[in-house]
């Protein structure tokens, strides 16, 4: 299967990093991957997003027209990307910041209170890792072990960060798994 995942949010919410970790994990698992950021005007004070493709086959276009999954960290992102998701696809919304209901009925939707969970863990900065966990659980694009390994490789010089981030990822997964129950 080919996962075509778009992650979007405010500039500071760390969606680009989450996308990179996802791609990194995919690579470590010997899959074909690509990561493509938005860049430019929307970055300054506006929104940021990236497209991650994880696939068994060589990747053609790194640009995603119809995502299989979308992560919306804030309302403008949901408004922008929800309409393009493939029927039957996944929409993960950061319910800490989005109270509006998505108006598509043909999707699998997860609401993850990422900021609250991050605050519970005691580090408001890891909301994006909570979402990473949610994506993993919701799409199976990569394994959680792959994601954790990717994190540890990328931040090899900062081992102090490992525990809290792993915790955040697992809490995000739980959140989706519990929702599925």
């Amino acid at each position, binding site marked *: 299967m080919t996962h075509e995942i778009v992650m979007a949010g*405010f500039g500071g919410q760390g969606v680009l990093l989450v996308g990179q970790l996802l791609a990194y994990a995919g690579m470590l698992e010997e899959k074909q991957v690509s990561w493509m950021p938005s860049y430019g005007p929307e970055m300054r*004070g506006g929104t940021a997003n990236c497209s991650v493709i994880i696939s068994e086959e060589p990747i053609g276009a790194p640009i995603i027209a119809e995502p299989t999954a979308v992560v919306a960290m804030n*309302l403008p992102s949901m408004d922008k990307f929800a309409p393009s998701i493939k029927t039957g696809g996944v929409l993960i919304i950061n319910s800490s*910041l989005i109270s509006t209901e998505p108006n598509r009925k043909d999707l699998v939707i997860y609401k993850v209170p990422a900021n609250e969970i991050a605050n519970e863990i005691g580090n408001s900065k890891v909301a994006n890792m909570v979402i990473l966990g949610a994506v993993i659980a919701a799409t199976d694009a990569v394994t959680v072990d792959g994601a954790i390994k990717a994190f540890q490789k990328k931040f090899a010089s900062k081992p102090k960060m490992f525990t809290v981030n792993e915790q955040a990822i697992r809490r995000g997964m739980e959140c989706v798994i519990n929702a599925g129950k």
Partner: protein
Amino acid sequence: MPRPEFREERCKGCGLCVVACPKKIVELSDRFNLKGYRVATCIDDAKCIGCALCAKTCPDVVIEVYK
């Protein structure tokens, strides 16, 4: 009575007005506006002396000061 008014939807939560107010009555609130910024607010209109320093300092012309 002078008082500042904040056009919150325009505020970017930079905090420059907080520093600028000689009466220390401007603070960042806990509210977020639609753009995701914590917005500034006046915590005690009564103390305002109408110096407009908050307004002049605000890069985003968020603040209007009324007499």
